[in-house]
């Protein structure tokens, strides 16, 4: 136990402030964000991640936004096991033929406002896999998408930014 505590103290807090560019952006939208997350989402935004056919590259970076450097929980953002509790779906693609039904069902199980963020080049437009007998292409071929986060895979910062952009657009979607 003493070793665990020592390692924790030795490591300290490694969470980083966001880089100036992103930071400024967040500050600009800060007021609206605060309103959105605190008022509409009761201080926390809950995300269900759905892999609709990705190569696992995007999943690794989504994991990374949970690590102590990016620490997405400081913004009240956290991941849930069930779409029933989710405010947002974070979907990676391309949507495979075999995942299409599961993705639709997950979307239908999500309560409104059903924010959807399409992650990665494949999630945005099918990427290297394009459209074929087995790949339907981007997420928006199957469910409506609010925000696109391109990249192969997108960096953790791009992901955080995408999530915050979707939250920022939320009051508009509510109507």
């Amino acid at each position, binding site marked *: 136990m003493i070793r665990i505590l020592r*390692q924790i103290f030795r490591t300290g807090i490694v969470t980083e402030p966001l880089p100036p560019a992103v930071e400024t952006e967040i500050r600009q939208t800060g007021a609206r964000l605060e309103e959105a997350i605190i008022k509409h989402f009761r201080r926390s935004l809950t995300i269900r991640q759905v892999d609709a056919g990705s190569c696992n590259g995007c999943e690794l970076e989504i994991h990374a936004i949970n690590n102590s450097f990016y620490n997405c929980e400081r913004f009240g953002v956290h991941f849930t096991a069930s779409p029933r509790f989710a405010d947002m779906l974070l979907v990676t693609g391309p949507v*495979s033929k075999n995942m299409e039904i*599961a993705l639709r069902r997950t979307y239908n199980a999500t309560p409104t406002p059903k924010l959807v963020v399409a992650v990665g080049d494949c999630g945005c437009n099918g990427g290297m896999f394009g459209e074929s007998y087995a790949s339907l292409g981007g997420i928006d071929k199957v469910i409506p998408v609010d925000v696109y986060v391109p990249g192969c895979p997108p960096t953790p910062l791009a992901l955080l930014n995408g999530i915050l952009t979707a939250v920022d657009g939320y009051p508009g979607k509510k109507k």
Partner: protein
Amino acid sequence: MSMLAKALTAAFGGELTIDMRQHPSAVVCCTLPREKFAEAARILKKSYALLAAEWAVDETAFGRGFVVFACFRWVKEYLIVRSELPVDDPSFPSLTKKFLPAYRFERQMQSLMGVIPTGHPDMRPWIKFEDWPQEAFPLRKSFDATKPMPRVAGEYVWSRAEGEGVYEIPVGPVHAGIIEPGHFRFQAVGEMIVNLEARLGYVHKGTEKRFEALSWKDGAKLSGRVSGDSTVAHSIAYSMAVESMTGCSIPERAHWLRAICLERERIANHLGDIGTICNDAAFAFMLYQCSRLRELVLRTNSRLFGHRFIMDKVFPGGVAVDIDNAGKAEMHAELEGLSRDFERLVVIYDESSSLEDRVRDTGILKPEKARELCVVGIVARASGMNLDCRIFNPFPPYDQYDQLELDVPVKITGDVNARTYVRIEEVRESIRIIRYMLENLPDGLLSIDPGVPAPDTNGFAAVEGWRGEILYWLQSGPAGEINRCMVRDPSSLNWLALEQAIPGNIVPDFPLCNKSFNQSYSGHDL
């Protein structure tokens, strides 16, 4: 001539012909009449060979009909057996009763290529879901892959355990965590699992078919996305297969840089796995510590090589990364810190009795079973099998055994702890050999023109990714284009082992066991 080829020549004599289109020449490819396909497997099994892959190719473009291939491995040797099938009767004798892994390979061949394994005990489709049209065989040349496929009605029949008190738990395809999709069905009595059946194929994106529409250069990009966590290993394997076809020998420095990237990928993924295995045993401390170390490795990758996963940096002919003295110093410093922190964590792992209680004797894959299932990589090494392409099929610098002194950890208990410990020791070893490679990195070019494969040539390569042996088999078409790209991710073999390791464990231990295998869904479903 290799041992396996000798055994086959002795048995078949004049019926066997050696296929000279296969490259590199170290990999022997024998053509046999299709009636002898299973007989050859029986003889090879007696010679202690393991089945590495089985696949089918549409060679109608050459006027040859369908061809089935089986690749066997014995220590350092790879041997490929091929048999031609007429177009109007594409059946061949099944290998499943000789080699268990053929079970899924053959279901997949039947589903996607429409060749029929006679004598196969389970003819349910694999990857091809029940709602695909029966006559859709995407890997056939006559199939138009660009068109969307209609859905038809159909039902999948599960294999089931029945009896008093047996209940069923379906899981997936959308899982609770941030992982890839797949469906698992447990039949349990109380807490104990009596049967597990996995159903995969959800992330089938038509990857193998997609290769056939790409140029050799773009193929490298796609191979880097077969399984995003093993992007370096897959693109090395693809590139080496292409290089074997064109006879291109890439600069020494490019080989070494590939090896450095490959080892960095191994470290990053093993760190992630060690953390998540512990997290699934409710030891979250380790997850946060390990993901911190993993993040540091990825950041160094990004700074020195321009991408966190070093994606798209390996292609036929060489590499697109380089390292100067400042970079070497930076990497040395990084490894120094990494090694220090990692050793502290290993002590904590060793000393936590509550963790030990969960990981020891959980999810055991016995050595006999591992051999029967022909598993590879970390799973094999945790169950007593000494397999590692870095030793048996090395590219430079791995072939410098006496300087590199690569130590491959082998455990015999086959439980979650063994699989974790193989990873721990591999991280240490990778750190050590990266240091060696940095200090002895040869000068030279980074890449050369790989040339273009001649028509009707076959290429082969085996590379040890962090999960295990990755195989690529390529064939060029009549115009020198990609006619077929067979990808064999280690997961294609190891998924069967998970099903075998689970029964007898309690339901809450499934995530822990699954994590300790950590197989790729995308690399398997293709």
